[in-house]
């Protein structure tokens, strides 16, 4: 071993948020996810079911009794489905497909990012504790804000990308398989635009922030993942609301939910950063 004489590498000036540091942690987390086949397969399974299996089954089986009896809550949803939101000239079979593809499945696309983000976020921060790598990070110049932001974005971005990719696949499948049966392109709608563009990132951010918030105390990934249930429950309430006809998921509902989520996201992030205690993490390793 020899020490080479040269000047210290130039070190950038410190800004309120060091995006290079944030990006480094995110990149590291993503590399770890990509190389963990078990984690990767569990991430892909949920979107495949929601974006491929379900729409294909709905369109191919159409309004047959098999479908409505197989999917729990679907018959109730159809029974309570208000008149006037489906084009008037649709046949009964077309109404079933339209109602399910456009309305019934909408909240499920909020479950994809929540579940994805909860898997990656818990693996990221609690996983670092389990693997005893977190202390090394805490010794670096990463600020609490940068570390929390990196961990949140590191989970939110893949969750959003995966959901958007699922949406594209869902849209293509619905278009290719459904258009001949429905007499033309009927999907996506404005409600879906709001859902995908606004709600998906916002709900991912909230779920991830909550997991990061409890990660300081959690010692297992499963424990941290359980926290995301607090976000899953309101999403399930939307599903049930649709199924019982209490509240149909439309543009107005989606925008109201977006505003509420945006406020919750900001509050959650500020709280998580404020409550993030290095001491608590280090002493509970």
């Amino acid at each position: 071993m020899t020490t080479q004489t040269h000047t210290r590498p130039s070190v950038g000036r410190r800004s309120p948020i060091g995006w290079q540091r944030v990006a480094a942690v995110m990149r590291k987390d993503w590399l770890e996810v990509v190389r963990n086949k078990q984690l990767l397969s569990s991430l892909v399974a949920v979107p495949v079911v929601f974006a491929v299996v379900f729409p294909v089954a709905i369109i191919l089986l159409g309004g047959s009794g098999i479908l409505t009896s197989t999917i729990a809550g679907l018959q109730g949803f159809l029974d309570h489905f208000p008149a006037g939101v489906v084009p008037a000239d649709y046949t009964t079979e077309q109404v079933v497909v339209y109602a399910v593809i456009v309305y019934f499945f909408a909240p499920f696309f909020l479950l994809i990012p929540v579940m994805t983000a909860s898997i990656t976020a818990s693996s990221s921060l609690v996983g670092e504790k389990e693997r005893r790598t977190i202390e090394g990070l805490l010794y670096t110049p990463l600020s609490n804000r940068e570390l929390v932001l990196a961990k949140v974005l590191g989970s939110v971005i893949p969750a959003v990308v995966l959901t958007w990719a699922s949406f594209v696949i869902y849209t293509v499948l619905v278009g290719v398989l459904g258009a001949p049966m429905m007499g033309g392109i009927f999907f996506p709608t404005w409600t879906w635009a709001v859902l995908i563009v606004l709600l998906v990132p916002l709900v991912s951010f909230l779920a991830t922030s909550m997991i990061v918030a409890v990660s300081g105390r959690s010692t297992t990934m499963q424990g941290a993942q359980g926290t995301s249930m607090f976000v899953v429950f309101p999403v399930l309430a939307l599903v049930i609301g649709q199924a019982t006809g209490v509240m149909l998921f439309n543009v107005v509902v989606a925008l109201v939910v977006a505003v509420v989520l945006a406020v919750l996201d900001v509050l959650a992030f500020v709280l998580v950063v404020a409550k993030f205690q290095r001491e608590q993490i280090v002493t509970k390793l």
Partner: protein
Amino acid sequence: MTHPTVCADRLTKRFGDREAVSALSFSVSRGRAFGLLGPNGSGKTTTIRLLNGLLTPDDGSVALFGEPVTARNADALRQRIGVQTDTNLYETLSARENLRIWGALYGIDRSALAGRVDEVLETFGLSVRADSLAGEFSKGMRQKLAIGRAILHEPELLFLDEPTAGLDPEAAAELISYLKQMIQVSNTTVVISTHQLAGLELLCDDIGIIKQGHLLAAGPVEELLQRQWPGNRYSVSVDGGQGEARRIAASLATVEDAAEGEFTFGADDDSTVSEVVAALVGAGVGVRAVIPLHPTIEDFYFTTLDKEVAA
């Protein structure tokens, strides 16, 4: 006025009823190597965490580079610090990826990072395994990579927690030599926490001995050794029992330890040694060897701990 690089002042940390670190005070000047020595569970790791601002002291304070460490400036100060602890590497990432991420965290320019990573890999003999996953490395290779990660950004202050653990004797000696060279070339300040004491005098200028959170002794190595063992010490091997030989030597010098066939004595000058040997030979005691003893950090460590137990 030049501030010490590290200054701990009455540093105290409690976990519940247990006082992990108790009123610890010491300082380390720039370009010096400080050995924080103590048995397992003595508070070394807690001290390193306190010095880096990972833990908040219950009492006392820490100043680094002349600045009191607070929650507000700790992140910026850590920019100037490198730390190697027993924390794990990212096992599903290669050695190169582990280093590149660390370099980015310390803000090393992208243009300089690749070259610096190669340099560190080369320094620690890891170039041929640069693209192997850290999880496939032996314990010694992981230890080298962890140290490489700590020195990557060429910190002004380097904390090493048991850096020679897992290294074979040759690699440990190489590391000590590398660190010594780094201090000379870059004027880096090093705080090394260890209970592996052999050969430490080659590196450490100052030491502190900690036990159960209390600092038992601290200061420059030479000064501590000189204070503990003023004058010179010699080990004498004799034929037969040491009883008679010891009695003769004790009449001329201060006899310290004695065992079957040998004893140790202290003497202020060489003439005393000649007198002792002449007296022994004159009394018919066969003198096989007289060896001047150079006290080591290890000697001082055990003597200090023994004194503490006796007290």
